[in-house]
């Protein structure tokens, strides 16, 4: 089942056209990886999905609903969670407050409590640190918090902007494992935007390659990983 469908999206910062006719889709429960180098427009695409940047052309639907008509602060209620570049944890609030705010869109406070317990169960470190301010966590712990918080609203899809950024390789591996586990256990679709091509494609079902604001390749993640051109362009081998 189609969940997120982006079709023919173009967008610009002022006069600078960044995205050109981008189309991609994510099915329910699917992990899709969008890879591309610095400045390709990956962050911009996610900011468009969250409603922080307008499109000049194109359509976006989530679960059949026209997402561009939904106000930014209402998008979480239609099932969209966004982990922005740099993780977006609120450094001056405690770990627990960050989690509570993750469930801001939920009506029932009982549901909120349950989800917090579930988050602590999944990330025991967060329970230990719950009354510490988020800014005092390590980079890896903050990424865990970001993921835990993104799950608090029971989303249908989580869009993640470079979850590997600034993390040691071993932590990156751990983070990707968690992402994969969360997605398969809870049937949550994930759209990962990454420069780390190997790691993100190796947990993904499908992938897209974004270059200078255009989708230049798409396909099964495995096929992209084994592709000679992509390997030489992105890995230098």
């Amino acid at each position: 089942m189609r969940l997120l469908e982006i079709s023919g999206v173009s967008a610009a910062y002022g006069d600078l056209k960044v995205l050109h006719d981008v189309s991609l889709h994510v099915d329910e429960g699917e992990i899709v990886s969008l890879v591309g180098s610095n400045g390709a427009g990956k962050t911009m695409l996610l900011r468009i999905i969250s409603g922080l940047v307008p499109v000049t052309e194109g359509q976006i639907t989530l679960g059949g609903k026209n997402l561009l008509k939904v106000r930014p602060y209402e998008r979480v209620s239609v099932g969209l969670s966004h982990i922005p570049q740099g993780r977006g944890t609120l450094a001056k609030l405690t770990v627990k407050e960050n989690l509570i705010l993750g469930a801001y869109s939920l009506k029932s406070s009982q549901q909120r409590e349950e989800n917090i317990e579930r988050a602590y169960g999944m990330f025991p470190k967060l329970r230990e640190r719950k009354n510490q301010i988020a800014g005092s966590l390590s980079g890896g712990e903050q990424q865990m918090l970001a993921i835990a918080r993104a799950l608090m609203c029971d989303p249908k899809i989580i869009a993640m902007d470079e979850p590997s950024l600034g993390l040691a390789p071993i932590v990156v591996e751990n983070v990707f494992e968690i992402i994969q586990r969360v997605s398969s256990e809870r049937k949550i679709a994930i759209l990962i935007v990454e420069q780390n091509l190997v790691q993100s494609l190796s947990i993904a079902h499908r992938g897209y390659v974004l270059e200078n604001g255009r989708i230049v390749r798409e396909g099964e993640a495995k096929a992209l990983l084994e592709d000679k051109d992509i390997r030489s362009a992105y890995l230098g081998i």
Partner: protein
Amino acid sequence: MWIFTQSIINGILAGGVYALIAVGITVIFGVMRLVNFASGAFFTLSMYLGYFVYSFTGWNCYQLIPAVAILSAAVAYVTFKFTISPVLGKSSDATILVTVGLSFFLQNLVIVLFGGTALTLPSEISNVSIRIGEYTLGLPRTIAFMVAIVLVLGVSLLVNKSNFGRSMRATAENPEVAEMLGIKSRRVYTLAWIIGIVMTSIGGLLLTPIYYVNNTVGAPFRTVSLMAVVLGGLGDIRGAFICGLLLGIIESVFSAYFSAYIGLLGIFIVYLIIFLFKPQGIFGRKERVG
């Protein structure tokens, strides 16, 4: 020694209202990085609003609190929608000009509506005071102080413990992330503005037993409270509160030892000295909030 202790007592009591206004300014600044230069004008306006309701009802200053709170909240809502909201997120020059402009507008509006002569809101307790040993506490100031403390405590609880407070702090730190979480930042800004204005307004109303109501009565209060906000570290509620009390004490000590006209000057001198050595304020950390 008597003079000294008595002037400290007077200063703490007077400082309560500075602290109240300073915390009101801080709530607004903390959430949307906007310095409310119109706080003095809202202070003034609230006294006129009190007079207005009094002229129908004959209520005293304390009975007027709910009515003035509601009316000033309404004025705050309207001014936010039509003056603040359009410039939010624009340059800080624009926001400064808007609050300064709003200040002039309100100060002149009250002249148009109520005339230019000073008014009084009669109060039976204007001259009543409490004696504790050899010291005297003016009753109106004492009540104003106590109400101010209660309001400041209430607002800090709201900010630090409530659901709404959490969404305020989230918006203050990162409005984009707050929106991603489902928080409507416009609503948070509107409510922060209203809370800040109502605090200032109640401060003004509480001083009607001992101040004439005229269109510039709020100006010194705004100036001193803004200084308390800066000394308190810009955006720090606790800092603004303590510095509000501190400036009240300084004013009172200077008035006691020199003359009543010197009080404000004393505040300026101390402010400049502190600012010279600690430009980030007494409680300001090097790295500022936000």
